């Protein structure tokens, strides 16, 4: 059950806010949980992570106070505008602006924790065919469906954004390249399952870049690297995953050891057995 903040709560919150020099009051949902803890938690988040939390936590406070009511209304409107500024209207994914902010955060996290992060640059092959032959509405529908498909392919920590047009990006935190390849392949295969994809021969060209603690890259260089790999995937005929990066480039290696490699290794058993027979003869 929701309750209005007790006067002393409101007082405490106000005090914290004034200490922090916040320009506007931070109003969060208070539903029997501990409002003070919530505020402290929010403090640990980065600026835009916090924005997201604020966007989704609706300020529902039972208010007798007219002024506070006005503030809440204003905050609701602000939240709506903020979400518009970060969410892509057509697909519901995060937009380019949010992507740039979050990429910065994840690179900082890598520098701090030492855990690599990966960036996937995804471009749809032959998408123009849908727009040209079936119209832009159909094209938009396909993009929205692609976005939904991609969202289902990622892990809870990954962030999928629409980069623009028929280009998407995914940030994979704490992820090594060989794991990123596996996720990229999920994307690649999922695109082919979207209704209409095979008919228009729509597929995905995906470029992967890995940012390590020792990569001398800024955000632009990181994006360029993923771009570069994506163009390589395109130039090789599309519908594939390519990698680039500070590390030596690898192609294909999805699992640590594939079945073909295992078979090749196992083949020594036969030759060694033959050898044993010869030794015994």
């Amino acid at each position, binding site marked *: 059950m929701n309750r209005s903040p007790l006067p002393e709560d409101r007082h405490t919150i106000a005090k914290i806010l004034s200490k922090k020099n916040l320009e506007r009051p931070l109003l969060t949902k208070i539903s029997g949980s501990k409002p003070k803890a919530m505020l402290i938690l929010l403090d640990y988040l980065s600026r835009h992570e916090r924005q997201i939390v604020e966007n989704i936590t609706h300020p529902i406070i039972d208010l007798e106070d007219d002024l506070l009511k006005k503030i809440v209304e204003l905050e609701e409107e602000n939240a709506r505008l903020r979400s518009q500024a970060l969410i892509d209207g057509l697909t519901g994914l995060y937009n380019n602006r949010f992507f740039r902010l979050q990429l910065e955060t994840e690179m900082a996290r890598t520098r701090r924790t*030492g855990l690599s992060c990966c960036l996937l640059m995804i471009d749809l092959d032959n998408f123009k065919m849908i727009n040209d032959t079936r119209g832009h509405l159909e094209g938009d529908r396909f993009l929205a469906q692609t976005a939904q498909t991609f969202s289902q392919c990622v892990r809870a920590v990954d962030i999928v954004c629409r980069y623009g047009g028929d280009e998407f990006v995914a940030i994979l935190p704490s992820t090594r390249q060989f794991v990123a390849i596996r996720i990229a392949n999920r994307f690649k295969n999922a695109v082919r399952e979207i209704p209409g994809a095979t008919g228009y021969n729509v597929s995905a060209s995906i470029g992967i870049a890995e940012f390590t603690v020792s990569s001398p890259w800024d955000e632009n260089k990181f994006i360029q690297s993923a771009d570069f790999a994506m163009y390589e995937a395109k130039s090789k005929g599309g519908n594939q995953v390519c990698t680039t990066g500070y590390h030596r480039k690898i192609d294909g290696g999805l699992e640590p050891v594939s079945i073909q490699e295992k078979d090749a290794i196992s083949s020594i058993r036969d030759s060694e057995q033959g*050898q044993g027979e010869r030794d015994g003869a």
Partner: protein
Amino acid sequence: MEHKRPVIASVSSGKGGVGKTFVTVNIGAYLAHRGKKVLIVDCDLGLANIDVMIGVKPSLTLKEAIFEDKIIDDIAIHTKHGFDFVPASSGAIEMAQLMYEDIEKIKEGLTRLAQHYDTIILDTGAGISESVLQFNLFANKNIILLNRELTSLTDAYATIKVIYQAFGRNSFNIIVNSTKNEEEAKRIFNHIDSICKRFLGFPLQYLGHIVYDDVVPRSIMKQETLLTHQDQSTPAINCASIAENIVSWQ
């Protein structure tokens, strides 16, 4: 005074029980015998056992370096085998789950210590955990150990492949342990070498082999190296020849 950059060699196998610790200790002893200043570091952070193999009881271990801020220089101990040794602690859960920062701390300590030695050998743990990979990255020479078992071949290959993918390393030195004879060792090497060329696109380097002989378990039981136990046995000669190859890296 100008000091040559020391050889920092990691010894990994992927699979456990291939003989990493035995090989590390014996090569270390032969390198020391050749007049090299050798430091052996037990990097098997969760289940360390070099101390048991060479019969020392360390009072300080890497655990203290990480959690109590002891200087890694104080932890290194001199052994009767001629090499110095940095012990890890066995069975400490918190050591088995080290964070990247902790591993970096060990690496910093080792970098400082490295200037006093010609050769540093890192005995990494089994598996391909973050710490095993990080110590392989820290080393400037990667040694991969395998034996005649199929699972050991597969795990050695998996280790090579992961290190290659993660860090772009494409130079690995192979030791075939517990082999019947040199011909068998060469056959096993040629096999895994051809698989690396075919799937990863680079060849492997043959560092040597150690023939199986009863003197190996006997020396381990006595907590001695082959150098002091059976200097003229075939495995002893094999270890000496591997040490000779490592000397040529300098």
